[in-house]
């Protein structure tokens, strides 16, 4: 530090008393509000703790963890689910090693979560030693992946390719192959629980992406007929509730297709989710397209690029970068919307809960416990995803450009 510069001390953190006075007791009204709030908080916390640790009977939850996780997926094929989970954990670790920042925090949280799950204080009867070890193995894999990603230099593009491949591999592993001895087909009716919830949302968002981009481009296009058709599709889908679309694909689709084509129930629901997501995706992408300045188009034209080249090489890469946060938000919304699949008879997480309650007369009145557990599971996933995406957004400065 050179002489002559005066160093201004950073503002001191206010003392506890000052903080309290400023934030809780600044006036009579405020003091009153504080007192009322404290009473409310104490009351809610007390009833909540009493419910969780004393009153509640968690047996329909702890005795059926596997059902919540994978539904009725056959036990002898469970290794496939584990393989997928391992794959995701490893890739998560590699991404964390490569990207650091929020991804690292997220991966770390995942590692801790797996350890916590492995150490769940419930009877070994309901969560066996092997399952606990398998859960803990994920933490090791995340760590291994992290070391790999941090030490081994490779292009970030390969990571994206690996994630893409892992998605396809997931579908192949879960569904199996027809006439394969090692990987016999598991019909989709047996997929369930959190597995199906994730799958519906993932397939929905992945499949809706290209359709959404095309629709958005179509809506922006100068060709009146194409534009009109895209607008009609987008506004029609966005104008009706998701339930009606799911119902349409589950009841009407068999009527709309010739008798020779039979699509099973899960695929029909996936189709419904995809159509629904595509319309919203189109609107998100349109937002990105509109954020590109005219100058980009003019510059591309001046470079001698034709319309197709301009779109693919100049406009889309920039537009899609801007809409990543919106797509993450849409994925979270879609993840929550998968619960509607219960209405067309799929066995996703919520449906598993409702089936468990009705499966045992002892559990008939334990709706609170089961649905509270399901709400907690959803909350953990959606809140952590939303939190991570907000952090990434802030770090990258996306959306503020």
């Amino acid at each position, binding site marked *: 530090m050179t002489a002559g510069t005066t160093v201004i001390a950073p503002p001191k953190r206010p003392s506890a008393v000052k903080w309290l006075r400023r934030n809780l007791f600044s006036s009579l009204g405020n003091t009153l509000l504080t007192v009322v709030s404290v009473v409310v908080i104490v009351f809610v916390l007390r009833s909540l703790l009493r419910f969780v640790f004393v009153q509640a009977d968690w047996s329909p939850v702890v005795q059926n963890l596997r059902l919540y996780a994978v539904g009725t997926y056959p036990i002898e094929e469970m290794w496939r689910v584990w393989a997928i989970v391992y794959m995701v954990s490893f890739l998560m670790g590699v991404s964390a090693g490569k990207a650091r920042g929020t991804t690292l925090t997220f991966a770390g949280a995942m590692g801790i979560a797996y350890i916590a799950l492995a150490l769940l204080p419930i009877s070994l009867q309901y969560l066996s030693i092997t399952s606990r070890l398998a859960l803990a193995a994920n933490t090791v894999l995340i760590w291994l992946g992290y070391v790999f990603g941090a030490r081994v230099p490779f292009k970030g593009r390969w990571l994206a390719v690996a994630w893409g491949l892992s998605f396809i591999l997931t579908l192949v592993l879960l569904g199996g192959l027809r006439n394969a001895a090692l990987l016999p087909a598991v019909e989709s009716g047996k997929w369930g629980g959190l597995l199906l919830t994730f799958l519906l949302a993932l397939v929905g968002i992945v499949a809706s992406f290209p359709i959404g981009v095309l629709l958005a481009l179509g809506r922006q296009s100068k060709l009146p007929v*194409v534009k009109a058709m895209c607008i009609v599709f987008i506004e029609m889908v966005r104008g009706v509730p998701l339930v009606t679309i799911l119902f349409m694909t589950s009841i009407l689709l068999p009527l709309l297709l010739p008798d020779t084509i039979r699509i099973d129930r899960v695929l029909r629901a996936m189709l419904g989710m995809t159509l629904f997501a595509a319309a919203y995706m189109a609107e998100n992408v349109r937002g990105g397209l509109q954020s590109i300045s005219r100058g980009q188009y003019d510059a591309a034209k001046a470079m001698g690029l034709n319309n197709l080249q301009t779109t693919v090489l100049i406009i889309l890469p920039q537009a899609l970068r801007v809409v990543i946060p919106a797509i993450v938000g849409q994925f979270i919304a879609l993840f929550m919307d998968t*619960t509607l699949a219960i209405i067309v008879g799929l066995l996703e997480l919520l449906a598993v*809960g409702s089936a468990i309650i009705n499966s045992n007369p002892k559990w008939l009145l334990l709706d609170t416990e089961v649905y509270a557990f399901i709400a907690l599971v959803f909350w953990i996933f959606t809140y952590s995803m939303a939190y991570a995406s907000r952090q990434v957004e802030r770090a990258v400065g996306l959306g503020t450009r």
Partner: protein
Amino acid sequence: MNSTRLPGFLYRKGVPVWRDVVVLQWTAQIISAILVIGFIYFLISNVLSAAEARGLGLGFGFLNLEAGFPVAESVIPYDPTRSFGYALWVGFLNTIKVAIVGIFLATILGLIAALARLSTNWLVRSIAGVYVNIIRNIPLLVQLFIWYFAFFQQLPPVDQSLTLPGPVYLSQRGLYMIGLAPAGSFSQWILFLLAGIILAIIAYQILFRYQLRSGRSTYPLITGLVIFIGLPTLGWFLVQGAPLQVTVPELGRFNFEGGLRLTPEFAALLAGLVVYTGAFIAEVIRGGILSVSKGQVEASRSLGLSSTQTLRLVTLPLALRVIIPPLISQYLNLTKNSSLAIAIGFVDMFFVGRTIINQAGQAVPVFILIMGIYLCLSLVTSFLLNIYNRRVQLVER
């Protein structure tokens, strides 16, 4: 370049047709239109053949047939001998009922939560933040299940019902509370009420414009309020007997008598929708209020406006411009989400539609009807929103 000239009709203004932008664009459009229309034709022909094979009609004639199924609750008189069309109308009115009450309550809840989130009190701020962050991250359907199966279904039987201040009675039969029942003279009185509302708005507008033009204080708000309250009060005494009567629920031998009853299904759906949408509305309102820059408020104070005038004439108009579009789309979301009623057995339009599909097998026309109605609701809303947006944008420039 033009060494080999092709026949003249292949050129337009000297450009060969396969290079002519207009021709290429039209070709692309025609091809895509043919593809889409062909696909739709393929679907329709399949439906027709499937309908023929199963002996189902595709017309809307079935709407006049007798419905034959009961409907648990209805705004208008209904019995199973009425037609399918009438049953659908009953369902539509139920959807509208839950939407209107839900929008009203969710707005109040959202406003309270938004103000709480902006409070200077740290505890109040945190409670509201926890509410918003918990509710927005749990699927609505899970919340509806909790409200219905874990709360309303597990309430005590009628003779042991919980009594909340009000009095509000909660039991397995639903929620009973003090209500207002229209009496014979209600239909006359409602005219006074409507006239009061319309005249109050007109008077406010005229006086407010005059105040802006002349600069003299004309008290538009107070005059409007006086008309709004005065006319219905006048009408109350002019019509024969009181138009509204207070009814208090009283426990009879088997059930409550009198009072306003909400069925468990309606109450659960309403509670779920209000709590869920309220959290989103809170964020919308908070964002809108935060979007008004501090300079605007300071500038208006330095112009000599009082703090209420600042709020009414500067902060609110600026904030509302940001708030209203997403607020309306939340209202629309609430209306569309009310279709989840089917999962907990509230008889809304979609529920009736599904019952008709099960009974009469008329899947295609029923779907066209229901989706058409939802679509109309959203298109009308977005049309009005566009008009509003255009208006506030013009104000800006």
